[in-house]
C-alpha cells in the first residue's frame, strides 16, 4: 500500500530594493516614468559602458538579509547570466551565481514551522517588453538595472496556505525594514513557485516551476491548481514533465510555457567588470541598527504586555506607520491607556486617513501627532471630557492641528459638573417635555433617558451624564 500524496513547495521571490538609483548606474529607480526616460549608456547596453556597484543597494540588501536572520558574506562576487532577449540590453544579466551575498535565515510561520532560506543574491532587473501594441514589440528600459534581491527558500513548504503566509510575513519584514515597498502591482515583488508531488514514502517528485504570479492570492490559487493537476496525472499513471508553466488567471489554471529541453544555457561566468562586493563589520552594525522591531515581535508585545486582542494587534501592525504611531503615542501616555489608544488609532485615525475632507492621507501626514492622541486619551481617562466631546476635539485637531487641550478650552468642551449649571439645564428640559416628565413621575424609569438626552443637547455635550441623572432624579423626586 502506498502512502498519501505529499506536496513540496519552494519559492523564489524577487524584490526590488527601494534605492534612489539603479544597481550599476546613476539612473533613477522610479516606477511610472515615461518609457526609456530613466536610461543611460549602461542600461541601454552601449559599447564602452561599465558598471559601478550602488553602495546603497548593497546596504539595503544586507539589511534585508539581517532582518531575515541570514548570514551575510564579507565578500561576494558577481556573475554574468548570458541569454538573448529584447529587454536585456547587454545580452547578459549581472547576478550572483557562485557566491551570493547571503545564505541561511528564514521565516517562522504561525503553525510553528520554519521556512529556511537557501540563499539571497543581488542582481539587476531586466527591462520590459510590451507585446500588446499591434504587431511590433516595444521595449522600455526604465526597469533595466533596477536593483533586485532574489530570496530562495528550501523546499520547506507543504501547501498553498503556507506559501501565502510565508509571502505575507516576508513582505511585512521587508517593508518594516525599509528595504522595499514590495508592491506587486508595481512589480516590486515577484514570485516564482516550484511545486512537486510525491507519495509520502517515496522520493521527491518531478518539479514544475510556475511563473507569472502577480498576487499572493494567485500564488495560492496556482499552487492549489497545480497540486491538483499533478496529483490527478499521477493517479492516472501519467508522469510529470519538468517544465515551466504560467498561471492563467482567467482560466484559473496553469499551462505549459516551456519544457526543460528548451531552456537557455546561461553560460554563467564571473563578471570581469566588477570587483567583489565587500561588507564590513561597520556596515553590518549600521544596517542591523536600522532594522526596527519587526511585526511578529510587535504583535506579541501588544498581546502579551498590553493585553490587546489579537485582532487589534493585527490591525495595528498591518502597516508600519500605524504601529509606529501607536508606539509613539504609547510612550507619551499612561501605561493603562493602551487599550483606549489602540481603539482611537484603529477606529478614528485610520478612518481619518481615508476621509478626503481631512488633510493627510497617511498617519504620519495627519495634523494629529502621537502626543496629541495621548493627550486626548488622557483627557477622556481623567473624565475631563467624555468620548463624544473627544471626537469633536479630534475632528478639530485633525482640521487645524491645534493641541487637544487648547481645543477643549477654546470650545468650552470640558465636562460641566457644577450642580447649579446642570440644574438650570434640567429645569429647561423638564419644562420643554411635560410628557416625558409625567412618565418619569409615573415610575417609567426608561423615560428619564429622553430628559438626559435633552440636557446633553442643551449643554452641547459638556454636561456629565451621571451628574445629570442624579440631578433629574432628585428634582422629580423619584427613586434612582
Amino acid at each position, binding site marked *: 500500500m502506498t502512502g498519501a500524496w505529499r506536496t513540496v513547495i519552494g519559492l523564489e521571490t524577487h524584490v526590488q530594493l527601494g534605492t534612489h538609483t539603479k544597481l550599476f548606474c546613476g539612473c533613477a529607480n522610479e516606477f511610472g516614468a515615461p518609457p526609456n526616460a530613466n536610461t543611460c549608456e549602461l542600461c541601454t547596453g552601449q559599447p564602452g559602458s561599465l558598471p559601478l556597484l550602488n553602495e546603497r543597494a548593497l546596504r539595503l540588501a544586507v539589511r534585508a538579509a539581517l532582518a531575515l536572520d541570514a548570514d551575510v558574506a564579507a565578500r561576494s562576487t558577481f556573475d554574468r547570466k*548570458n541569454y*538573448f532577449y529584447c529587454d536585456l540590453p*547587454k545580452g547578459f544579466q549581472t547576478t550572483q551565481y557562485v557566491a551570493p551575498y547571503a545564505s541561511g535565515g528564514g521565516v517562522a510561520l504561525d503553525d510553528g514551522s520554519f521556512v529556511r532560506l537557501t540563499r539571497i543574491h543581488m542582481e539587476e532587473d531586466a527591462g520590459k517588453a510590451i507585446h500588446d501594441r499591434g504587431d511590433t514589440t516595444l*521595449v522600455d528600459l526604465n526597469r533595466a538595472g533596477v536593483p533586485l534581491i532574489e530570496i530562495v527558500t528550501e523546499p520547506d513548504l507543504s501547501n498553498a496556505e503556507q506559501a501565502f503566509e510565508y509571502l505575507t510575513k516576508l513582505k511585512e519584514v521587508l517593508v518594516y525594514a525599509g528595504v522595499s515597498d514590495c508592491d506587486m502591482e508595481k512589480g516590486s515583488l515577484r514570485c516564482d513557485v516550484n511545486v512537486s508531488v510525491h507519495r509520502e514514502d517515496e522520493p521527491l517528485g518531478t518539479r514544475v516551476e510556475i511563473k507569472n504570479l502577480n498576487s499572493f492570492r494567485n500564488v495560492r490559487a496556482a499552487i492549489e491548481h497545480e497540486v491538483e493537476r499533478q496529483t490527478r496525472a499521477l493517479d492516472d499513471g501519467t508522469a510529470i514533465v519538468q517544465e515551466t508553466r504560467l498561471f492563467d488567471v482567467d482560466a484559473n489554471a496553469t499551462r505549459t510555457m516551456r519544457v526543460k529541453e528548451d531552456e537557455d544555457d546561461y*553560460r554563467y*561566468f564571473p563578471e570581469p567588470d*566588477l570587483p567583489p562586493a565587500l561588507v564590513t563589520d561597520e556596515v553590518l552594525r549600521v544596517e542591523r541598527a536600522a532594522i526596527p522591531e519587526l511585526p511578529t515581535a510587535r504583535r506579541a508585545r501588544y498581546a502579551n504586555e498590553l493585553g490587546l486582542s489579537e485582532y487589534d494587534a493585527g490591525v495595528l501592525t498591518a502597516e508600519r506607520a500605524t504601529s509606529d504611531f501607536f508606539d509613539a503615542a504609547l510612550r507619551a501616555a499612561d501605561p493603562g491607556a493602551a487599550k483606549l489608544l489602540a481603539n482611537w488609532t484603529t477606529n478614528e485615525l485610520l478612518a481619518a486617513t481615508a476621509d478626503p475632507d481631512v488633510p493627510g492621507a497617511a498617519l504620519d501626514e495627519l495634523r494629529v501627532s502621537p502626543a496629541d492622541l495621548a493627550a486626548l486619551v488622557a483627557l477622556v481617562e481623567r473624565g475631563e471630557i467624555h468620548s463624544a466631546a473627544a471626537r469633536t476635539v479630534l475632528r478639530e485637531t485633525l482640521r487645524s492641528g491645534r493641541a487637544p487641550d487648547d481645543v477643549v478650552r477654546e470650545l468650552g468642551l470640558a465636562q460641566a459638573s457644577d450642580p447649579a449649571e446642570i440644574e438650570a439645564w434640567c429645569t429647561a428640559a423638564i419644562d420643554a417635555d411635560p410628557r416625558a416628565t409625567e412618565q418619569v413621575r409615573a415610575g417609567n424609569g426608561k423615560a428619564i433617558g429622553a430628559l438626559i438626552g435633552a440636557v446633553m443637547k442643551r449643554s452641547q455635550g459638556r454636561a456629565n451624564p451621571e451628574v445629570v441623572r442624579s440631578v433629574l432624579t432628585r428634582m422629580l423626586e423619584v427613586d434612582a
Partner: protein
Amino acid sequence: MVPLALGSDTGGSVRQPAALCGVSGFKPTYGRISRHGLVAFGSSLDQVAPLARSVRDLATLTRALAGPDGRDATALDTTLGRTGDGDALDGLRVGVPREFFPDALDADVRAVVEHALDDLRARGAQLVDVTLPLVPAALSTYYVLAASEASSNLARFDGVRYGVRVAGDGSLASMMARTRTHGFGAEVKRRILLGTYALSSGYHDAWYGRAQAVRAALTANFARLFADTVDVLAGPTSPTPAFPLGERADPVAMYASDVLTVPASLAQLPALSVPCGFVERDARRLPVGMQLIGAHGADALVLDAGAAFQGATTHHRDAPCTKESAR
C-alpha cells in the same frame, strides 16, 4: 606622422604591432587606465595602451591617462609612481625565462634579442635565467578566456537598440540571428562560437574552468618570480618579424604569434615592447621588439628600464627599411 598614438591591448594588439613596426608600445598593469569608453572584447584582459617613438613619450602619455576616473570599478587605486630614473638598469635583476625562447622562435629574432640582453648587461643589469613552466599553456588559456568573455561582450550587438539591423522572419530570434550573421566578420564569429562553446554547460569545467585555473597558477608563477628573484622579465615580443600580408590565412598560425604577449595579459602585468634591432628578410630590414614585463603595478620600473635601454641604444631612432628605400 604622429608622436603618440593609442590602441588597446588584450593579448598583444599594441605590443606586437609596435615590435613589428619598430616603435615602442606599452600595455600598463590591468586597471592602470580606465576602460570606460573602450569597446570591450576580453574585459579581464583589455587595457588601453599607448604607442610612441620613445619610451619617454610613452611614460608621458601613460601618466596623462593613468588613474581612476570613477567609471571603471576595476581601476587600480595605486598611483603610477615616479618615472625618469636614468640609472634604472644599474643593478636591475632581469629574468630571462627559457620559455620565452621556444623552438618556434625565429633564429634571427633570437640572435637580435640575445644581443639586446647583452646590451642590458653592459649597462649594469644582472641577467638571471629563470623558468615560467606554465607559459607554454598560456596561448590556449588565453584563447579560451578571451573568447569566452568576447562571446558575452559582443552579445549586445543584437540589432535591437543601435547599429545594423537585418529584418528577420517576424521573430525576435531570427532578427537577432540575421543581424549578427551579417554584421560580424568571420574571425569575430569564430571567437564568439569558441567562447560560447567553452562556457556551455557540460563543457564549462573542462574549458573555461580549467583555463581559469591555469591563469591563476600562471599569475602565481609570475608573482613568485617577482617577489623572490627578479625585477623585470625580458624576451622577444613576437616570435617572428613582420610577415607578408595575407600569409597567415590559418587562424591557428595567426594565434600562435601571440604566444609571447599573452602571458603578461593573463597575469595583468605591465609589459613594454621596445625596438631592439633588425633582421634581414628579402633584402628588407625588419624591426625586432624586446618585451620587458614587470610585477603587478610596477609600471614605472618597466618604463624606466625601457627608457634607460633607449638611452644606451639607437634602435628606436632607426627607421625600418622597405624594399624601395633600401635601394
